[in-house]
């Protein structure tokens, strides 16, 4: 055996020592260190305020963030309007934020219009494009127009932008099924912008065809109001009677439901008026003294609207008409309510409030969102060249479109219509359209440029939320989260254009960003310092303007419409379009959770159904769940027939909100759109949501 330290030993020991140093590091770094990320730190939950922009109620919300990621939503506790609660649409806002089919950046049309061939462009390029289009009509500013359906301050910036450019063509869409019967009233300026019913003072509320729990604006407050009227006051429970062609949700929640032919509420109301007058149940002295045109109204009603007429014209029993009238006559405070349907219906229903001397339960309230402006009036107050109701017809009749550059913000008439195909055709005549929409909707698909804005929780927000009684609050909130995509607020975009245009526009819209404009408004309400925290300020108690004028003078002896054309023209049934809360204003079908809500009474979801009475179905040979066509003089749609006993036997009821061809994977191709079979009444421009003659066949 060799003695001593050999070369081989040296290497051996060297290798061992080297390994001794290296191994712990390798073990530490490669083996012992966990491969996955550690658990998030505890208490990573936080809540940030935001404003819901699904409807004009502008509820303040609380977004739940876990590790900075939005994973939940609640109503803001303590807010006087929503009191910590939310409606179904408000609760679904995260699905809009995380929607996989949101547009990720601006798109410019490459192929022909409607071909779906788009290319991505940058925001500066998009701004240049819009600016150059606007410059091209600078000498004729009336050729520029804006539709703005955006709720809150964003819409105000767009209005100011239009005015600063010098065009009168700024349109704000109305949604009549959610509005009270404004046309039945007059103030010194004309038709009031807003009225409020004093439900709390009424002992009996009779709804003439208004599924108000689902349709009325400010849904959270409406649900709470009903609850309070029923159970909120010790020993006082408001009664509800409901006339509608089907047992809707409001009808089911009422004490009694009276089936009626759709659209015939005005005739029923005058038959009720007949009983009130003939049985002396009206407030004689007061009505006769106060109400203009009472004598001729009395003569007309007594002559032409005996309760028997309701049997023929409304499909109601005369006995039921008498019961409704006696119920109204037997309480001191009653309210007859309806929605903004035909002028005749609105005036006829409101005549009951005049007769029972309860018109003081209806107040005009200040339209804060309409009245409040960003700075002193600088606008041209000229009226737009066409009323929004008659817009498509006006454009289709024009040989050349008077509007050459159109911006559309938060409005999708190519789906909601009414008469979406006329809108599509009319939009087709406009040379340049830019649409602000977070999704590819039907209207954007016809545009030349699509500019996706951030969704509500990603943007600075502010606006006036108005309660049903006219109390107004200024709600404000910073962005709750970072934007997911390459988006830009429509107001920011408009301010950028105004800056680039320079001159008068830049001086009238001096803000560097929407946030700056919001800060200015917030300061005015004493909320400048809190803007980043989010919150609200009460800005006005209910102010009831001078009493509204409503007269019986102009009430025609008949509705003047051609509702009875149906039988002769091969459309023997009447359409009743239903407006579910989850799709209020025709919006919401792109959010999958909302798709499971529209038909709790029929057990339907994720499709369009046509509800008919079993007797009608058996007469027509239609079976439950069978696919059918529902056709009218305007077109036809496919729907699943559902037999529903709780409806009038001459009615077909179809929900509104489905039938998109765009709007992402959960909406496109699901169901049908009843707006396609609803005709527009030529004289008033009003769609015949109720009472359209239809036929149903296999």
């Amino acid at each position, binding site marked *: 055996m060799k003695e001593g330290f050999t070369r081989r030993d040296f290497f051996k020991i060297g290798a061992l020592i080297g390994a001794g140093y290296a191994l712990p590091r390798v073990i530490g770094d490669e083996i012992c260190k966990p491969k996955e990320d550690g658990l998030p730190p505890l208490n990573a939950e936080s809540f940030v305020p935001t404003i819901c922009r699904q409807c004009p109620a502008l509820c303040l919300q609380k977004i739940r963030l876990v590790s900075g990621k939005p994973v939940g939503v609640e109503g803001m506790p303590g807010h006087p309007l929503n009191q910590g609660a939310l409606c179904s649409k408000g609760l679904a806002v995260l*699905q809009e934020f995380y929607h996989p089919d949101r547009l990720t950046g601006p798109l410019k049309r490459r192929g022909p219009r409607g071909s779906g061939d788009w290319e991505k462009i940058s925001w500066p390029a998009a701004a240049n494009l819009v600016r150059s289009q606007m410059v091209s009509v600078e000498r004729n500013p009336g050729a520029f127009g804006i539709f703005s359906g955006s709720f809150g301050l964003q819409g105000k910036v767009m209005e100011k932008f239009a005015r600063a450019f010098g065009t009168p063509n700024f349109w704000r869409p109305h949604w009549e099924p959610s509005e009270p019967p404004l046309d039945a009233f007059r103030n010194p300026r004309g038709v009031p912008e807003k009225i409020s019913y004093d439900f709390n003072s009424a002992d009996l509320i009779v709804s003439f065809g208004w599924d108000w729990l689902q349709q009325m604006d400010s849904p959270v407050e409406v649900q709470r109001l009903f609850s309070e009227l029923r159970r909120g006051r010790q020993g006082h429970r408001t009664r509800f009677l409901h006339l509608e062609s089907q047992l809707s949700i409001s009808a089911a929640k009422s004490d009694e439901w009276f089936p009626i032919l759709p659209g015939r509420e005005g005739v029923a109301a005058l038959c009720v008026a007949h009983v009130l007058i003939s049985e002396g149940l009206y407030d004689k002295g007061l009505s006769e003294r106060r109400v203009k045109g009472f004598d001729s109204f009395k003569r007309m009603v007594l002559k032409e609207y005996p309760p028997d007429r309701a049997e023929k014209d409304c499909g109601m029993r005369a006995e039921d008409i008498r019961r409704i009238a006696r119920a109204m006559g037997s309480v001191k405070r009653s309210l007859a309510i309806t929605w903004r349907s035909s002028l005749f219906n609105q005036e006829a229903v409101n005549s009951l409030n005049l007769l029972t001397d309860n018109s003081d339960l209806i107040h005009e309230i200040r339209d804060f969102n309409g009245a409040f402006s960003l700075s002193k009036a600088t606008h041209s107050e000229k009226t737009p060249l066409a009323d929004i109701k008659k817009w498509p017809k006006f454009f289709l009749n024009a040989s050349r479109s008077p509007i050459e550059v159109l911006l559309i913000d938060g409005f999708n008439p190519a789906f909601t219509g009414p008469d979406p195909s006329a809108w599509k055709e009319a939009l087709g005549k406009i040379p340049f359209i830019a649409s602000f929409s977070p999704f590819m909707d039907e209207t954007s698909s016809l545009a030349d440029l699509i500019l996706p804005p951030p969704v509500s929780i990603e943007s600075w927000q502010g606006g006036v939320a108005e309660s049903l009684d006219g109390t107004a609050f200024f709600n404000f909130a910073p962005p709750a989260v970072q934007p997911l995509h390459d988006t830009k607020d429509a107001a920011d975009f408009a301010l950028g254009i105004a800056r680039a245009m320079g001159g008068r526009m830049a001086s009238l819209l001096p803000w560097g960003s929407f946030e700056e404009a919001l800060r200015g408004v917030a300061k005015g309400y004493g909320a400048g310092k809190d803007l980043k925290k989010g919150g609200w300020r009460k800005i006005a108690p209910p102010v009831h303007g001078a009493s509204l004028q409503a007269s019986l003078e102009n009430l025609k002896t008949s509705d003047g419409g051609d509702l009875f054309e149906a039988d002769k023209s091969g459309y023997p049934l009447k359409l009743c379009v239903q407006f579910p809360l989850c799709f209020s204003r025709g919006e919401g079908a792109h959010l*999958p959770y909302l*798709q499971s809500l529209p038909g709790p009474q029929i057990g339907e979801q994720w499709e369009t159904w046509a509800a008919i009475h079993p007797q009608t179905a058996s007469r027509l040979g239609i079976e439950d769940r069978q696919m059918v066509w529902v056709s009218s003089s305007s077109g036809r749609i496919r729907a699943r027939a559902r037999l529903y006993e709780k409806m009038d036997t001459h009615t077909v009821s179809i929900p509104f909100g489905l039938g998109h061809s765009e709007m992402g994977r959960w909406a496109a191709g699901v169901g049908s759109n009843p707006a396609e079979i609803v005709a527009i009444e030529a004289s008033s421009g009003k769609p015949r949501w109720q009472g359209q003659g239809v036929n149903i066949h296999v």
Partner: protein
Amino acid sequence: MSNHEKGVSLTDNHSTTRRGFFKGAAVFLLPFVFRRARAEVAPRKREVKSGTRLWGMVIDLDRCTACQSCVIACSVENNQMLGNPQEAAMGRVIRWIRVQPVVKESAGGSRQSLMPMPCMQCEDPPCIKVCPTAATFLDPEGIVGQVYPRCIGCRYCVNSCPYTAKFFNWETPSWPKPMAEAQNPDVSPRYKGIVEKCLFCHQRLQRAKEKAAFEKRALAEGDYIPACVLACPAKAIAFGDLNDPGSEVSRLSQSPRAYRLLDELGTEPKVSYLREE
């Protein structure tokens, strides 16, 4: 021994063979065995220790407007499946709370009541009696729980629930990116082949308990509120401890308007309704 002789010996002599003795004994003991077995399957009403909370709910149908905020609040809180037309057509869209029309006949005619229906959280739940794997159980505070990894998807409980409040996952729920990011991290997602149900937002109870423990105080009324209760615009749902006689839910459940659904089955639901007038 021939067969004939055997027969004679049993009938004529009245003498008992060893086999006969065992037979008789077995028959004698049979009812005892059955009774014992039955007692194990269906325990008598459990004793709720005083001081234990018993979570319950009261839904006032006179306040409820069937707006279905509760349905969406529940879906968001509990990572409910998104749904699609195909699943809807097969009745497979899972919603733990649903608004169901119930027609009630009375002297004045029939009336449709729209009832929000979560799990009734029975005190004597039929579902746990049929579960072969103890995947569903009654927890000490009265919530009927469901342990997803234990569930083998036999659907016995789905069929035994008289309120149809248990739901089977026929498919793996689809959560396209980035929609899955919206999921509540406190609630485990479900998968194909298992049964799920309303747990009274148990995760919120857990959080409330942790928070109270951290703040070194007892759980107070209002610390724990399920998502559906919080979201209700009509304030139609009361929730709390039925064992606390002072709680709103105890008070309301004693109202003359209160009733429980299918009470005659003896399931003892902890969800009560207040009828419309």
